[in-house]
């Protein structure tokens, strides 16, 4: 199967069940809302070393924020509910509460509740106060520019992490152009994030290593510089590979983002689109490329 002359490999991305949370971050201006959300979702590229995967989502014009101010959604994905609580406490506390004029609200309608604002409130040193309305409790923590408003609990729901596809191209220019275009298109899909820098990862990994104690290592079959030394997965003519990893709040959203991204990535200089899997034995979800883009 080919799109614009680009081969779509008959394979699938294997993804895993994760815990997902969606926070709405608001501020006096859109710029400061984004700054706060980016601070909270920074250093969250991979669950391997960051504790969570996270990113931001623009809000639709018909999706007003809880307080009517400019805002942005911040999505977080962890392997466990407990891990989510730890991450959100640190990231909301250090990334959002510290940012001028910010406020932070739960952005999911259902799921298990984890207490975040209910713990951050102690920063108020006894001068914090709460408001309870419509089943939602807000904490008002006095800070130097006024008040930090944070919802007592955030919802955590089952989510999907690790959707992916590879862009194999004739060179880094073509690979980068295709990946950037794909990520730009995928950002229109709500409820998903591409957690790596700019949405793109160059250091894809495999879950094995020759070194004791090292659980993951570079995805050597896809590394062009060592092509003669390994059992290479690179077709002839491929000189650079970039990967896009997708986490989403729902399986359908990850599938849609994959479809949008793969189609958008089929640009001149791209040889093949592939995906990473473990033979289907580890992950609960499979995203078959050809099924998604239509046969």
């Amino acid at each position, binding site marked *: 199967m080919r799109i614009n002359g680009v081969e779509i490999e008959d394979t699938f991305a294997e993804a895993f069940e994760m815990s997902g949370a969606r926070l709405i971050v*608001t501020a006096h201006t859109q710029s400061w809302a984004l700054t706060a959300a980016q601070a909270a979702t920074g250093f969250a590229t991979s669950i391997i070393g960051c504790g969570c995967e996270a990113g931001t989502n623009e809000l639709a014009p018909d999706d007003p924020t*809880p*307080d009517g*101010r400019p805002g942005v959604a911040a999505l977080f994905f962890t392997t466990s509910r407990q891990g989510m609580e730890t991450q959100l406490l640190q990231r909301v506390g250090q990334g959002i509460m510290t940012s001028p*004029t910010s*406020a932070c609200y739960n952005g999911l309608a259902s799921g298990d509740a984890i207490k975040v604002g209910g713990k951050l409130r102690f920063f108020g040193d006894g001068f914090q106060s709460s*408001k309870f*309305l419509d089943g939602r409790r807000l904490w008002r923590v006095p800070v130097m520019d006024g*008040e930090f408003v944070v919802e007592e609990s955030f919802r955590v729901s089952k989510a999907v992490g690790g959707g992916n596809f590879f862009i194999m191209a004739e060179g880094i220019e073509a690979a980068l152009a295709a990946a950037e275009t794909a990520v730009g298109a995928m950002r229109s899909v709500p409820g998903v994030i591409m957690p790596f820098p700019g949405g793109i990862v160059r250091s894809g990994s495999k879950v094995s290593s020759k070194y004791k104690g090292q659980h993951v290592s570079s995805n050597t079959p896809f590394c062009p510089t060592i092509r003669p030394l390994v059992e290479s997965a690179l077709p002839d003519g491929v000189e650079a590979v970039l990967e896009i990893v997708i986490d989403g709040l729902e399986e359908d959203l990850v599938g849609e983002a994959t479809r949008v991204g793969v189609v958008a990535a089929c640009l001149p200089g791209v040889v093949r689109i592939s995906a990473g899997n473990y033979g289907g034995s580890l992950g609960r979800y499979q995203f078959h490329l050809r099924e998604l883009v239509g046969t």
Partner: protein
Amino acid sequence: MGCLACAALMLDRGGITLYRKESSPIPVEADSICPDRFLGRGPAEIAALPAYYGRRRVTLGDLFEVDGAGADNITVTGDLRHVKKIGLGMSMGRISVTDDVGPHLGAYMSGGEISAERSAGDWVGAHMKGGRIVVQGDAGHFVGAAYPGEPRGVTGGAIIVGGNVGGEVGARMRRGSIVVGGDTGEFAGAHMIAGSILVFGRLGARPGAGMKRGSIVAFGDAPKLLPTFRYACRYEPAFLRFYVRRLEEWGLSIDSVAADGCFRRYLGDTNQSGKGEILVRDQSQ
């Protein structure tokens, strides 16, 4: 709305309709008009529930025509100006009152909704624990307040009055929300322990006297505050924007922009803990 034909029209609302048979200044205690009491009962059994007509023990059937079925949606209509305690202690369902209604509407209620299409008497939602009361007209004194001798009044839920209210709205309230579309009388939030009172008209004199915590918000004019309230700052309270937008979602005709500006924050009453707040919208903006 003064005839049985009108009562029949009320059946269009579904549920059970009670139409007051006569007008009388004699007070009626009708705490039986409550979804919890109607549950599992047909019209005849509902008509047999007790009420007081002055000092005389009567039945609801002596005072009201009862028609329809379904306990969770009750419509009460007719001359209700002297009918007290409708919805007392209700925990579920809905009561719609189409005419002016007497005191103690929804007192002690813990769930469900009461909608009064016109005005209500004193003590609306006294000691309310949950649910929602919406009065589209005016309400009397002591809305959401504590009865004399009781340490705390409202402990949950929301009371919304579209018009004016009398004195001591929210007195000794412990939790919950009271929204007043018009003006308030004196001593709004007196001895308030916590909770929120939002006033879109003019806030009456001496608000928050003796309050410990909680919020009184004046979107309109506010009087000179008691000397036991101290100015803190002028700022934009984000929680208030959240609050007003939830009220809008409830279908209340509130201008959410009213909460978008700056407010002057005063803390008091320093005769108590001093942690209560009165937010006065900065009219200079």
